[in-house]
């Protein structure tokens, strides 16, 4: 983790490449390590605080380590009207953590997010990049069991 820049090339990168670099780091390390922020800032000629600002802004980037699978449940109106509260509660019960936390075994992280564009199948959630819609509390176990 200390020598983050060895895995993702920072040479010949410009300011406009920042977001793509952070995305690669997120995929590689499941979060954006501090060392990566420091190296990227240096390589792009930006202050560290600005790189951190971008890294901490986006919902799909994280400055804290995340679990192997990230569950993102939509908390916007269409899903809310379709009882997303119940889905959130059953996911919480199933994996034993609250939104913003990661299970002690590092298997799951749980986050509440804004619209994921799946209103037609509300209530919906994302597990990593897979959309699961028309959720019912009964289906939660079944879905989560497929991620190990």
């Amino acid at each position, binding site marked *: 983790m200390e020598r983050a820049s060895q895995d993702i090339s920072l040479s010949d990168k410009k300011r406009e490449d920042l977001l793509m670099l952070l995305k690669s780091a997120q995929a590689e390390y499941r979060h954006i390590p501090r060392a990566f922020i420091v190296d990227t800032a240096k390589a792009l000629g930006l*202050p560290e605080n600005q790189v*951190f600002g971008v890294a901490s*802004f986006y919902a799909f980037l994280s400055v804290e380590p995340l679990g192997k699978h990230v569950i993102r449940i939509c908390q916007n109106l269409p899903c809310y009207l379709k009882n997303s509260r119940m889905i959130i509660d059953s996911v919480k019960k199933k994996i034993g953590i609250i939104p913003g936390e990661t299970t002690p075994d590092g298997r799951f992280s749980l986050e509440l997010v804004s619209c994921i564009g799946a209103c037609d199948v509300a209530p919906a959630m994302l597990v990593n990049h897979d959309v699961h819609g028309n959720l019912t509390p009964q289906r939660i176990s079944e879905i989560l069991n497929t991620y190990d």
Partner: protein
Amino acid sequence: MGNITVTINGTEISVPDPMTILEAATQNNIDIPTLCHQPDLTPNGVCRICVVEVEGARTLVAACHTPLTDGMVIHTRSPKVLSVRKTIVELLLTAHTGTCVNDVNAANCALHKLASDLEVGEPRFHVQKPRFYAPEESNPYVTRDLSKCILCFKCVKACDEIAGKGVLSVGYRGFESKIITGCDDALTHDICKDCIVCADACPTGALSRPDLLDKKQKGAV
């Protein structure tokens, strides 16, 4: 770049073009309150305290960054402006945690001064989880108390444009937004040295100069 004629509060005035509503008002001794604005920084119009009514405009506009156009008719103290301004102060106060009643630094807080000028009474809006950050006193030049920060970004601009250091920026998003240094690190002497332009720019005492604070505390005792 000739002169243009505008009407502010019923008085017709002639001002050079280009100029913002705020600049013209200030030049003609018409008071428009501001929080996020400072004449030597680029206006960013985030705090909305300087809203004024422009006849024909769809919404109230921020005086600090709205350029004048010929024939513009502006009201700076209409009932609509005053009521909106008051609500803005109330909204800002909800995120400005902590009663400054016992705080010796409250006299420096432009938001509290504005609240009393506009006769904002008891808090009308309540938040479930107030923002709270522990005050930081580790830096000898700047004391940071982010609970008081109203995110006007004046410090960020001052650090960039006046000091040219770019040490401060905005991190996180929405309600979690905060002004950060480094990777959301403590404001230590290594990061921020003694230029204190940020503390001088801060309207609320979220960034303040410990030397001034000490003097006031001693004076108050």
